[in-house]
């Protein structure tokens, strides 16, 4: 065994009931390296990460750390060995501050009393060490998703972790934030920390990782130095087939397509101001802007999830009353929210019940749910969207992250909406599923649905939208229109400039 091996995994298998999540995995992770893990949704990446970090126990096989076999019972045991994990879903206490979360359970104490001042000092050192800028006193619940991810990384660093498993840490981060995070990861490696890095962004893996392991259906396909891989070679290994990684040419709606959705003068104090725009049938409008520029707030206000101080929402030219999500649903508006776990899905409920929840009135006779019909229609939809497995009866939280995202889509497509608002629609989905979601969005638009797209991946916004609105400080500050014969106005450069307001 090489002396520089940090963790070795010997013939590890993991089953969940009848599902084989991992089959006979052998893997060696080099100390101080960044080890990438890639694979389709459900390939077993998170499961492998959790086993390394002691959050799951393998059914078979053995984990060897620093040459010694280990048998973790809880993640705490792994932490004692300097191993921790940043999970795909955020796991912070929202009611506590950044500082309290970072030092939760490892507070400086004297006779049981928490030493606030000492904690502050430690926090400042931590910030200096990690190059993160983060106010210690704010509540985690008031932070954006990306900032919450940073808090989680701080938390791991504060625990002096020598190996950190990062499960899709950049999944909802915009490019500039991702760049910062990657810097941090580099400096962690320089300090000798080993990092297991799970991501669906192949470019990111290729530029960041030293070694990459490809999983497919629970099996390890290969482990190679990243220099020997290309995005195409990885995709081929992950999917067993190759797919195109470029966007298909856009199909533009006819210029006289009717206006499906209009917002007029939407205001919400402290969040958005004088938001006004239209979306035509078949049009995909992208909302771009930095984190905190008010994109999600626009979505939530249109959907009635946040109270609005002024403004009108119109569907097909008629003003509709959307003071609550239930009114929005009835008016034909659907919203895929930003956070799948907190806002999108009921994790303890079955897949089928999640999908049908907003639409129960239409599949009920009186107050009685027509269960046969529900089962049939949800199953069909799950198959159509390629959710794996397409079984409505299983609990949502037993699906892989990407498949959960597809369930979220199914939930809002059960009854075709007039306006579909998609906030981070490809959050955590693999390259194949991403293409499937792009195709889905495109074909929904072709069916005459108006689509409002929000994404932290600019590439996605540019590749799909017919028109992009750029937001800054709660206002729409620029509009870029793509057209069939002139693609020069909608460019990454122009959008970024407007977002940052540099001329």
């Amino acid at each position, binding site marked *: 065994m090489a002396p520089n091996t940090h963790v070795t995994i010997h013939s590890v298998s993991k089953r969940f009931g009848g599902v084989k999540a991992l089959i006979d995995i052998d893997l060696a992770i080099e100390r101080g390296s960044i080890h990438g893990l890639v694979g389709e949704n459900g390939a077993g990446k998170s499961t492998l990460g959790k086993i390394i970090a002691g959050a799951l126990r393998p059914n078979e096989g053995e984990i060897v750390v620093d040459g010694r076999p280990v048998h973790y019972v809880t993640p705490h045991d792994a932490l004692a060995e300097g191993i921790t994990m940043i999970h795909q879903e955020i796991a912070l206490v929202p009611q506590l501050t950044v500082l309290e979360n970072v030092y939760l359970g490892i507070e400086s104490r004297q006779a049981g009393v928490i030493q606030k001042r000492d904690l502050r000092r430690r926090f400042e050192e931590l910030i200096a060490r990690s190059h993160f800028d983060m106010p210690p006193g704010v509540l985690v619940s008031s932070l954006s998703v990306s900032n919450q991810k940073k808090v989680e990384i701080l938390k791991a660093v504060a625990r002096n972790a020598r190996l950190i498993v990062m499960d899709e840490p950049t999944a909802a981060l915009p490019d500039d934030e991702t760049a910062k995070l990657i810097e941090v990861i580099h400096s962690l490696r320089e300090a000798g920390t080993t990092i297991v890095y799970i991501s669906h962004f192949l470019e990111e893996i290729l530029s960041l990782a030293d070694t990459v392991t490809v999983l497919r259906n629970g099996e390890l396909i290969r482990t190679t130095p990243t220099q020997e891989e290309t995005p195409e070679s990885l995709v081929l290994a992950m999917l067993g087939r190759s797919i195109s990684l470029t966007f298909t040419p856009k199909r533009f709606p006819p210029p006289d397509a009717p206006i499906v959705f209009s917002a007029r003068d939407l205001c919400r104090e402290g969040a958005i101001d004088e938001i006004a725009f239209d979306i035509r049938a078949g049009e995909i409008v992208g909302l771009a802007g930095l984190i905190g520029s008010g994109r999600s707030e626009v979505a939530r206000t249109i959907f009635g999830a946040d109270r609005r101080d002024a403004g009108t929402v119109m569907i097909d030219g008629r003003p509709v009353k959307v003071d609550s999500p239930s009114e929005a649903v009835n008016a034909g508006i659907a919203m895929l929210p930003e956070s799948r776990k907190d806002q*999108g899905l009921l994790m303890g409920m079955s897949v089928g019940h999640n999908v049908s929840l907003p639409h129960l009135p239409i599949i009920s006779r009186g107050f009685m749910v027509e269960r046969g019909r529900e089962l049939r229609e949800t199953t069909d939809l799950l198959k159509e969207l390629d959710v794996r497995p397409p079984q409505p009866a299983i609990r949502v939280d037993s699906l892989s992250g990407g498949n959960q995202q597809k369930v979220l889509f199914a939930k809002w497509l059960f009854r075709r909406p007039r306006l579909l608002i998609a906030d981070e629609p490809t959050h955590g989905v693999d390259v194949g599923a991403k293409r499937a979601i792009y195709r889905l969005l495109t074909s929904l638009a072709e069916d005459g649905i108006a689509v409002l797209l929000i994404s932290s991946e600019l590439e996605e916004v540019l590749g799909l939208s017919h028109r992009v609105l750029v937001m800054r400080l709660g206002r729409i500050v620029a509009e870029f229109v793509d057209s069939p014969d002139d693609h020069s106005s909608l460019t990454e450069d122009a959008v970024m400039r407007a977002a940052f307001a540099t001329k």
Partner: protein
Amino acid sequence: MSSSDTPKVIPAEEQRPRRFSLGILSDYGIIFASLTVFVILSILAPAFFSIRNMLNVLDQASQVGLVALGATVTIIGGGFDLSTGAIFAFSGAVAAFIARLGYPGLGLAMGILVGLALGLANGGLISALRVNSFVATLASGLTIRGFAFVLTAGLLIQIEDERFAFLGRGRFLQAKISVYFFAGFALLVWFLLSRTTFGRYVYAIGGNDEAARLSGVRVGLVRTMTFAISGLSGGIAGVIGASHIATGQANVGMGIELSAIAAVVIGGTSIMGGVGAVWRTLLGVLLLQLISNGMNIINVPPFYHLIVQGSVIMFAVAMDSIRHRGR
């Protein structure tokens, strides 16, 4: 890698059975527990296993059982109703008060309606003010019991009229009328929870009310209805109680809401909300009643009943927690 350091592979069988049985035990533990107690009691006391005693057990369980069915709905919906004991007393007092004026039937009906109305008020308040249901119903329970004392002037309202005692003492085909109410209400709640849109919404708001709201569920309305059902259950149980002793009084039903919540938890419905089922509550109620009935039959001194009940509840809560950790 040389063969000498080939790792020792831990066979799956070494770890699996324990987790497996624990999972089953915690999920369906209530069934095993009820069966076990049932069998033990049948062996220990021949008098136990008779139709007569069984119907007796059901009758004894009916009042707590009704309240527990109501509590099942609030708990699955992510709430707690601590006011049902007070509603129990107030409904019974209203029924007796009206019966004394010469209208026993109307009194019983009004008692039930008052329970429903109080539940609606609870729910409306909790939803409109967005207050924690635990605290809100603690407060409303005190108030309601206060009104019960005012209504009865702190005295017993005894009702001579035979018709008033019908609900609590009357029989139909061997079984007490109360048992039919219990069974009927159980069916109603089962139907609501597992077959209707309302039931789905209850599970949804209990699981995550923000996600439910963003799915178009009218959270406030649904939550209000869960408390209305709980109030209704307190009302029905209260008039049955009053009818049984032919008396309306303000200090009955003390702590019945806690026994009811205990029964719900023992059945395996999670206090975290979002999961649970009516059959679980029925078994939980039955188990608690069997234990106290059985202890009576085998002459365990009454003081020990509390100790045993407490231990059973603790055990059930531990099981619930294990189940959550397993996920």
